[in-house]
């Protein structure tokens, strides 16, 4: 080792203070000004009461004493089934089935799949007389295995679809793709469902000789006796924002149970979930008939996760949070702006930068301190109001889309994360503009304005705001999931944000980093 002395550090490399000490100092600054703490607690309180008021507000008349999971439409309760994962599901189809005990196989050739589309909108009672030929993209016909025909039961199915080829689906939310192609008389398909213990596998074939596995699943707790059979269903077809109910008709041939031709005449034909009070819009009641060795099954509806929030005017776990969130944000913006601009006004910023020359660290510490305090307050409020809000809505006869615990926790943490990020961004903006009025204006323009415009304007304006501005962070409030296997207008008006929760939050984090970087550069370039 040579004994050369270390060269002096360049003047712009701050040795400065440990970041922990900087954080601690900024926390003392925040907690020792009573007005700021009061404002933050006030924001949390306002957040709680506004969310509470919104949730307690809507009262649906005419449907007193609704059963759980029911929604009031024109005076009669409609039950939306709940799937095995707790999610709301559509479960409406025509099923021709028999009992299968223990392990076994069901095989059938599907020789045609056709359909009709209603000329009336989904909210009008459909009829076959006002319809035109046409097959919905996600029309489904095939083989299905379920322990029960009760709506919302677990199931596994292999099916032909309108344009999405052969699919294997189970328990509503799971979908895997098999061979492509449509069903015509010249290109029929063979389908097979095999139960082996708790495992159900789906296969497809063009010749009944070589089989391709499309998917398989272990459905734990499956009873020995299950229902297996043929099904057909066809979902609402969307043209723009307007949905039209459809009906699909499939012809099955060479139906076999455990490789022996099945006596389908003794099978039970059942129309599931298409009654008068069924929630999913259907074109007509399903039907079936025998034609020689073939069975022709017609069905309307869907076996899939429910996505019709906008159509039904229902609520979600997060639908009563927006107003409270905006008011809470406003107070956080004010406190974050004052926390740093007061130092500029009093000249205290020089004391701060004398104690901590690394100005970027001061900035980040200030943002984090306000952000973390706002986050904690918001988490406390949200953790109470999210379940309480849903309870209030339900107790007043409103249907609230079920949300998994994970989704609810994500909404609580996400909404609070949004508040925390706002605090950090506003701290950075305030360091740039230095004056309280300008800082509050800048913070409001960056956050509240796009939030309010997006929630008021709707349409494509709102969707672009929610993609490109810090308001993208609102995607963390998403309570509904988009599914590739359900065609729907996934628009803001129907309750779907244009970005996924994480993508939206990433946009917000991007803005936060840009604001912090710009403010740090400016702080170092300017004299204090």
């Amino acid at each position: 080792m040579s004994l050369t002395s270390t060269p002096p550090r360049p003047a712009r490399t701050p040795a400065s203070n440990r970041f922990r000490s900087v954080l601690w100092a900024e926390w003392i600054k925040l907690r020792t000004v009573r007005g700021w703490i009061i404002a933050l607690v006030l924001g949390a309180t306002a957040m709680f009461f506004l969310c509470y008021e919104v949730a307690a507000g809507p009262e649906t008349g005419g449907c007193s004493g609704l059963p759980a999971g029911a929604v009031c439409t024109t005076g009669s309760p409609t039950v939306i089934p709940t799937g095995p994962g707790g999610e709301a599901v559509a479960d409406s189809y025509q099923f021709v089935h028999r009992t299968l005990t223990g392990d076994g196989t069901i095989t059938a050739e599907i020789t045609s799949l056709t359909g009709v589309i209603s000329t009336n909108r989904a909210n009008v009672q459909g009829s076959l007389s006002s319809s035109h030929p046409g097959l919905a993209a996600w029309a489904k016909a095939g083989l299905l295995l379920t322990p029960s025909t009760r709506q919302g039961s677990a199931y596994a199915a292999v099916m032909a679809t309108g344009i999405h080829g052969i699919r294997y689906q189970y328990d509503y939310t799971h979908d895997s793709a098999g061979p492509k192609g449509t069903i015509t008389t010249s290109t029929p398909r063979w389908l097979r469902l095999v139960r082996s213990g708790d495992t159900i596998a789906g296969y497809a074939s063009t010749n009944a000789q070589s089989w391709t596995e499309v998917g398989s699943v272990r459905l734990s707790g499956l009873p020995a006796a299950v229902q297996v059979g043929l099904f057909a269903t066809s979902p609402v077809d969307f043209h723009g924002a307007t949905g039209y109910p459809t009906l699909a008709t499939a012809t099955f041939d060479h139906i076999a149970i455990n490789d022996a031709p099945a006596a389908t005449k003794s099978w039970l034909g059942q129309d599931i979930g298409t009654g008068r009070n069924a929630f999913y819009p259907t074109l007509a009641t399903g039907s079936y008939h025998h034609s020689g060795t073939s069975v022709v099954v017609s069905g309307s509806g869907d076996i899939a996760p429910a996505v019709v929030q906008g159509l039904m005017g229902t609520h979600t776990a997060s639908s009563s949070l927006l107003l409270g969130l905006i008011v809470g944000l406003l107070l956080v913006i004010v406190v974050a702006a004052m926390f740093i601009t007061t130092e500029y006004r009093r000249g205290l910023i020089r004391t701060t930068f004398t104690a901590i020359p690394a100005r970027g660290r001061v900035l980040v510490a200030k943002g984090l301190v306000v952000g973390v305090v706002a986050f904690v307050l918001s988490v406390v409020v949200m953790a109470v109001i999210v379940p309480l809000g849903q309870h209030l809505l339900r107790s007043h006869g409103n249907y609230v889309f079920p949300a998994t615990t994970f989704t609810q926790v994500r909404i609580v943490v996400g909404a609070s994360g949004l508040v925390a990020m706002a605090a950090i961004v506003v701290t950075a903006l305030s360091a740039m503009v230095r004056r309280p009025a300008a800082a509050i204006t800048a913070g409001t323009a960056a956050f509240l304005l796009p939030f309010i415009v997006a929630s008021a304007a709707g349409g494509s304006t709102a969707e672009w705001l929610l993609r490109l501005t810090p308001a993208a962070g609102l995607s963390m409030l998403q309570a509904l999931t988009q599914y590739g296997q359900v065609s729907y207008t996934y628009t803001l008006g129907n309750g779907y944000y244009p970005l996924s929760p994480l993508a939206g939050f990433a946009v917000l984090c991007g803005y936060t980093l840009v604001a912090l970087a710009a403010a740090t550069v400016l702080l170092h370039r300017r004299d204090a």
Partner: protein
Amino acid sequence: MIEQTIEVSGLRKRFGQTLALDGMTFTVAPGRVTGFVGPNGAGKSTTIRVILGLDTPDEGRALVGGNAYQNLFHPLRHVGALVDAGALQPSRTARNHLLWMARSQDLDHRRVDEVIELVGLTSAARRKAGGYSLGMRQRLGIAAAMLGDPPVLILDEPFNGMDPEGIIWVRHFLRSLAEQGRAVLVSSHLMSELQDMADQVVVVGRGRVLADASVDELLARASSDHVLLRTPEPAEAAIALEPAGGEVAVTDRGTLAVSGMGAQRVVEVLNRAAIGFSEVTTQRASLEDVYLQLTGGEAEFRAGSDGRVAR
């Protein structure tokens, strides 16, 4: 006490049209009180801000103990500064103000209570700083400067707004700090505030150093030493003194100011010429006179200056 110096070399800084610093260069030695004096707008505060890393100079550099301020780890343990006693959050108590500063340097509340006692604010420490008088704020500022027990102290105009008792206290306090081996830099726009306290004086004007000397050197260098002579025959006295090398000015009827020769020589000349006199006194130049001489050319700054360089 690790002895450390402040080295300011060749600082130049321009704010728009105004040249605030124009090659400012000086050194503050440990164990001494260095007065930093000049008219308002001479560049004192800007220099101090550059030393503290608050302002960036266009040229030159300032080092504390050989390091740029930005490179100091826990800088308040190296340099204590009182720049603006009014820089306080009014609704925060004095103790909490010191507490956040202490935590930023990994110091604890015991040190906070020590410095509060040191400046005599113990009884008012838990009151909101907004209610403090200017003198109390100066004491709080000195407490803040002493938090890190630093070897270097910088005080910008610490006497502003202080009562006479406070001024005496600050003088004694700063002297004792210098005697402990610390380097103490005290700025003022009034030389009289520094007399009897400063060991060294850096006189500045228009952003550069006009004089940098010990108090004794400055007094000796002063050209305004003169002899006051009271005589009933001023005209005759002037005629006698001038050929002997004296420069004579009439200051009053019967009173002459003689420069260029000592009192003894004046008496000799007058005796030889048999001119009577009632008083011969040597007039010592005060630091104030030296200051006025040095900064006389800086009238531009003194007239109508509000104490800050236009920015």
